[in-house]
């Protein structure tokens, strides 16, 4: 029997019913991710990146193919696949601490109340948000909300961490600060991560592998590039490495030459 990867998408297609018949968003995707790998998914808008991530999250079901996580078939959403949403999706009626606590309570595995509370605060500290535990989402900035969103996800100790353009709505400086947070967490926890991004530098800086998707409909994986940069990484020291420039140039050529934005090409 052949070895199956930790997270394995095998022949996954996703189709949506529309007025004009079936719309094929993803066409027979095969993707294998090993445990502890940080994979960035990059492609133009509308290429089905989110569809792919949602399929792994279990939020939409593949019409064909199977997704395996550690040998289990994924057929529904669950807390073992935590999602960091682009719009943070914190519940506004709960405080920062309560938002994380809600997630922790669903993944407690018999922890006592006091242990759960400590775990919540520990994770908030990891993203430097311990000071705002009692605040409501409306009282903190966008970058802070996303930090809490990340804390909520990692506090669930997921088998896979899914990030749907986590920094897309943030300004460049805040984004850099959060990228540093993610790198630090990755060095510490070594999660298996699947992250959607539009940002070439973000993809190269954060990930071990960059998976590039062709333009939809019926998107496929166009290129799979491994990023050979030493960890732990530091944005100032890696930026001058030849491998950084190489990875960057590969991705830019893919996005702007081989698969130009369909809106621009038209």
């Amino acid at each position, binding site marked *: 029997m052949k070895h199956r990867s930790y997270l394995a998408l095998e022949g996954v297609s996703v189709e949506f019913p529309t007025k004009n018949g079936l719309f094929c968003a993803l066409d027979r995707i095969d993707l294998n991710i090993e445990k502890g790998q940080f994979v960035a998914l990059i492609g133009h808008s509308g290429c089905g990146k989110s569809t792919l991530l949602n399929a792994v999250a279990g939020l939409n079901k593949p019409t064909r193919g199977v997704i395996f996580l550690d040998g289990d078939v994924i057929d529904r959403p669950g807390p073992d696949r935590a999602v960091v949403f682009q719009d943070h999706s914190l519940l506004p009626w709960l405080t920062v601490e309560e938002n994380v606590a809600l997630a922790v309570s*669903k993944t407690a595995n018999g922890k006592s109340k006091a242990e759960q509370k400590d775990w919540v605060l520990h994770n908030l500290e990891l993203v430097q948000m311990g000071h705002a535990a009692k605040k409501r989402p409306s009282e903190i900035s966008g970058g802070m909300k996303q930090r809490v969103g990340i804390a909520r996800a990692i506090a669930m100790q997921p088998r896979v961490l899914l990030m749907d353009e986590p920094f897309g709505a943030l300004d460049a400086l805040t984004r850099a600060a959060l990228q540093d947070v993610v790198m630090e967490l990755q060095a510490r926890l070594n999660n298996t991560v699947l992250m959607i991004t539009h940002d070439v530098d973000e993809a190269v800086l954060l990930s071990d592998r960059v998976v590039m998707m062709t333009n939809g409909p019926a998107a496929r994986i166009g290129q799979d590039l491994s990023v050979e940069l030493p960890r732990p990484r530091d944005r100032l020291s890696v930026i001058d490495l030849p491998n950084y420039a190489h990875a960057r140039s590969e991705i830019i050529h893919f996005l702007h030459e081989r698969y130009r934005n369909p809106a621009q090409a038209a």
Partner: protein
Amino acid sequence: MASKPDASKPDMAAPSPVSTTGEAVILPYPATAIARRFFPPMPKPTNPVLIAMQKFASAVLPTAFMLAFLLAFWTLACGPESALPGPSRVWAESHDVIMHPLKGVEFHGLIPDIQDGGDVGIGAHIMKSLGRVLKGYTLAAIVGVALGMLVGTNKYAFRALDPLFQVLRTVPPLAWLPISLAIFQQAQPSAIFLIFITAIWPIIMNTAVGVQNIPMQYRNVAKVLALNPMEYFIRIVLPACVPHMFTGLRIGVGMSWLAIVAAEMVQGGTGIGFFIWDSYNSSLLSDTIVALVWIGMVGFALDRIVGFVGRLIARNG
């Protein structure tokens, strides 16, 4: 030279921005520009009492002016001979009603005990009406929120019940009165039913809209956390639709107050609606005017109370 046209012109003899030595020269600002920069310091009150008074005045004075204007207009429009009494005549004729609203009411602690029979103060009538509204409205709130949740979460329940609700909600309260009397045979429960049936529609509608409009991202969070239906309801649905729910509850309380006055006018006995009808039959128009003011104030207070409770719950939910 073409590149230095300014220097060659005699009428541009004003100081050149570049000195002959090549160093930059900072030109002085005109005096007017400098003067503009120094505002005289605004006299700011530092006395906390003075600040509080200023705030109070800016909040209250517009309403006070409006009231004064209204009273003046009323006085001018209703002369001494007009059918509608002016303010001074209302004051003179209804002096007793205005000054003794709690006639016939005894308080045992906080619980009022209203004397039987007709001759009680206007406050006592208001209390009677409020008691009915409290019962009918509480019932409407409980049933309305429950039905709204059902209709909001289940699309078949929505398709089955929504047309019924849309038809029934247009029926005016008074049209229910004969039916209500036929069902209950007595004045008190049929008045309460009338409140209930009037107040319930906006509560159902708004709660249902609130549930239907729970943002996709909250649903996704619930799915990823694998909340069970009970947790989903308590942690997501209820708090997410509190604002809509209380919009419905606020409209509902206003409508129930409208309905009680109408119901009591027809049925008689006690209550502020009866008081108005009674004063009209006795040609005491000034009493009616006093009652009008009371109804308005109480309705306003009810609306504010429900709004306040809604804000309180939305904050702590």
